[in-house]
């Protein structure tokens, strides 16, 4: 800064001038919007996180049963000591953590293998039918994450749960061993088959952006194929792979559905299921310690990854289209590859849905005779013999209410996410390079590193009681909307920023020069130009909210039940067929939503929704 000229103005005038300048800054649109967003995020993210930590370091009413002379509200390290030491630490924290890690690492590696290979086959080979493979590859991700777990159970369960045999036992005549039916192996496989989509999308985008000339250059120098793959191709797709690792790892760490379905029967607890278990037992302090451990783990992973990716990330921007892309000739294995891929896709898409459907048509689970086929679970009347006396799903007003709740929640979340996207995008992009803009962007990123189940726990901590001006929101529908919108903040901000970046700043400035006020500029210039981006953001949020389970499982109550959580309650209640009917309805809704995206938002896609 240049040395400011010594002002000869009297102090009062200088004060007036600087307060005018401050007011001018304060009332500029981006600053106002930034401050509003900061306040909102403070309430939606920071305070809940603070409450979460606070709960773990103060005495809770429930603790009086264990420590009668504790003073509720006083500071204590009781929960931390209890959860991190001794036999309780081992059972409640370390073993589940170990399980979570096993599952996360296993699923990530398997997902990388599947997604990476598929991406390579689709982008870089002459395998026939690549287009169809490309479209089908994202379907498993669109379906709820625990669909495969449910289908797995239908096929592989042994008599450990419910005492009825699975399809495997019916076909083979022998019950599958426990390790195949439940626990880490099926959980890893099911998660990997859901999350491989991340790798598929990231790696195929990266492969598409690599100019084959780079590889050909190596070829001309006489490098072997393997050497080219290792020394040229791999380093170039590494950033994409690492992004996939971050996303998959942190998602699996916080995932609830699969471990709950496949882990519980053999008491294979992960942190996510343990958090819910502790909360159900009223041990808020304990549950929140676990949630914090989970958050710290997620943050550490992301931090390490970011360090690893570091400068390499910039490779991602190599790019644009129109590159020369040569394709490896698969030669005589062409057909073999194609058949393998088709079989794989049938196995992960058609077979699970078929199994679930079959299961819902069986009057009594495990009885594989024609006479047992029925529509009882779909449209059957109330019968005390089946499903705890509940009528078939389609005749069940409770389920209709639940479905409506799900749709309402998804619509509201999508609406607010899109709205916040506009505001965040504007505040961040127009302030690029300022500290305020960076702060807003970083705050909006926080929910990304908080695993779903922990985020739910955070909200219980915050809204279980009255807090300042906020009434106790637990059990209300509003809370579900708030938590879903908060969890989507990173996506809001990313899609908002990328939409706003496409509108050159001159377009708004031309409006300013023409004398248009903020509202006129938004209505007539910014909104029309960013609409398509926000539309696809809207529809994608609709889908992801529809099938979100980990986030809301701790927060739903009978009156705010959602389809996703309803499947889990049915499963836990032993009404597996009802659960599967609900899953199928959920899949139908989600697939319909995805179809609408393709139809009505030109350029809207899953890729965009993932912020690519």
């Amino acid at each position: 800064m240049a040395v400011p000229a010594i002002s000869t103005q009297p102090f009062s005038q200088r004060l007036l001038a600087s307060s005018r300048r401050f007011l001018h800054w304060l009332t500029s649109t981006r600053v106002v919007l930034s401050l509003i967003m900061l306040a909102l995020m403070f309430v939606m993210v920071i305070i809940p996180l603070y409450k979460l930590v606070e709960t773990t370091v103060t005495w809770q009413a429930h603790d009086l049963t264990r420590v009668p002379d504790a003073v509720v509200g006083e500071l204590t390290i009781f929960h931390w000591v209890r959860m991190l030491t001794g036999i309780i630490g081992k059972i409640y924290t370390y073993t589940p953590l170990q399980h979570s890690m096993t599952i996360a690492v296993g699923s990530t590696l398997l997902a990388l293998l599947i997604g990476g290979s598929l991406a390579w086959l689709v982008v870089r080979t002459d395998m026939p039918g690549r287009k169809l493979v490309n479209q089908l590859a994202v379907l498993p991700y669109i379906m709820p994450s625990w669909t495969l777990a449910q289908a797995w159970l239908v096929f592989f369960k042994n008599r450990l749960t419910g005492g009825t045999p699975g399809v495997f036992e019916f076909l083979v005549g022998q019950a599958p061993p426990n390790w195949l039916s439940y626990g880490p192996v099926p959980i890893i496989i099911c998660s990997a088959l859901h999350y491989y989509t991340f790798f598929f999308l990231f790696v195929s985008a990266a492969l598409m952006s690599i100019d084959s000339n780079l590889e050909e250059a190596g070829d001309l120098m006489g490098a072997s194929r393997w050497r080219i793959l290792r020394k040229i191709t791999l380093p170039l797709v590494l950033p994409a792979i690492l992004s996939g690792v971050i996303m998959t790892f942190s998602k699996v760490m916080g995932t609830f559905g699969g471990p709950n379905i496949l882990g519980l029967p053999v008491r294979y607890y992960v942190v996510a299921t343990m958090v819910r278990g502790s909360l159900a037992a009223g041990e808020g302090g304990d549950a929140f310690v676990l949630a914090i451990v989970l958050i710290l783990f997620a943050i550490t992973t992301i931090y390490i990854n970011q360090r690893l990716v570091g400068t390499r990330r910039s490779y991602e921007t190599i790019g644009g289209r129109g590159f020369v892309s040569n394709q490896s000739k698969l030669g005589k294995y062409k057909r073999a590859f194609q058949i393998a891929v088709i079989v794989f896709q049938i196995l992960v898409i058609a077979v699970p849905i078929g199994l679930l459907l079959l299961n819902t048509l069986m009057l009594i689970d495990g009885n594989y005779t024609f006479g047992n086929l029925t529509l009882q679970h779909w449209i059957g009347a109330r019968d005390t013999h089946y499903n705890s006396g509940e009528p078939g799903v389609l005749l069940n007003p409770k389920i209709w209410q639940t479905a409506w709740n799900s749709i309402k929640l998804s619509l509201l979340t999508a609406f607010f996410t899109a709205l916040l996207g506009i505001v965040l995008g504007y505040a961040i992009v127009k302030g690029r390079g300022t500290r305020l803009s960076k702060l807003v962007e970083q705050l909006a990123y926080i929910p990304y590193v908080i695993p779903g189940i922990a985020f739910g726990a955070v909200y219980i901590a915050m809204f279980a009681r009255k807090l300042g001006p906020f009434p106790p929101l637990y059990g209300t529908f509003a809370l579900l909307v708030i938590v879903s919108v908060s969890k989507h903040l990173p996506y809001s901000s990313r899609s908002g920023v990328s939409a706003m970046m496409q509108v050159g700043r001159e377009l708004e400035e031309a409006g300013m020069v023409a004398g248009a006020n903020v509202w006129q500029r938004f209505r007539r210039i910014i909104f029309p130009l960013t609409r398509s981006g926000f539309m696809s953001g809207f529809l994608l949020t609709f889908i992801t909210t529809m099938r979100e389970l980990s986030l809301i499982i701790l927060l739903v109550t009978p009156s705010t039940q959602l389809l996703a959580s309803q499947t889990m309650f049915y499963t836990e209640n032993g009404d597996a067929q009802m659960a599967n009917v609900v899953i199928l309805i959920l899949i139908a809704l989600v697939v319909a939503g995805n179809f609408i995206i393709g139809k009505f938002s030109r350029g809207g896609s899953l890729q965009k929704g993932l912020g690519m």
Partner: protein
Amino acid sequence: MSTTITIKNLSKHFGKVVALDNVSLVIEPETFVTLLGPSGCGKTTLLRCVAGLEDPDGGEIYIGNKLVFSYDQGISLPPGQRELGLVFQNYALWPHMKVDKNITFALEIQKLGKEEMQKRVKEALAEVKMEGYEDRYPREMSGGQQQRIALARMLAYRPKVFLMDEPLSNLDARLRMDMRTELKRLHHISGATTLYVTHDQVEALTMSTNIAVMKEGVLQQFDVPDKIYHFPANLFVADFIGNPKVNLLDGVVSGENSVDLGKFKITIDTFNAAGSVVVGLRPEDIVISTQPVPGAVEFSAYSVLPSGADSTIIARLGDLELTIKVMGISKIKMDEKIWLTFNPHTLNLYDKESGNLITS
């Protein structure tokens, strides 16, 4: 229309980068003033400060008698209240509006009547020779046409001051020539005070009433094109203006009216020069001869580059290299001996230390 733009002690920083350093400039009514300089010199920042799109961190701006910005009083009028029009480098036509909507946008905000708006659209399109294009979307027009529409959009709401930010830089060479003609005409007819940003010296020299040359946020020289070209205030301006570039030779003043350039001496008519100086010789001011001439210095033709209307000759004497420009296609052959004569009236002397022009 006769509006003065007065810029007083304007400063602007982006973080630690100084974009404008205490710039003062009075732009007289009805003049066409060009801000000229290499990229990053602060010319666009200055324009944006005048427009109200950036807030300076020091100084004042008046448009006419209206104080539109004052750091010391904490005043900053929004762009819409400064009664100016701005043409952007990339035109900034709103892609989702047709031509007529692009033009009437500002008029609607001024709440003009329907008929008046139609009249203005017609007039503005006629002024830029784009009649009948009302129903086109920007993407359906060429770059040159979009440029004209951007101009029409500004003309339609009749601002007191025209601001233009490198409006011709995205056009091809031929179209640029045409638009220069049109813009100069337009200014001639409307008489609106115009502030024009460019990095193209030819554009600046051909169009301006006055040129302000800037470098690293500092105003180097503000003068009429003739003075800017023939009497650059310092070595930066001398070097920046002119194509081919000016010859700058280090020398030492020796005696009353001569500078010793090492290999030879050159006569000057500047009297208050002393010590180390830099001599500035415009390539077209050097007279070239293929025969020995009294007082001329012998060089050899290192390279000859004819380009139709004129030719550029690179002459060498040891490691001393001079660029000379002659009219027509030169007959001189490479490596031929040539004799150069220097005119003491057309050369400029600069102080070696400060780089400033030494005036007689």
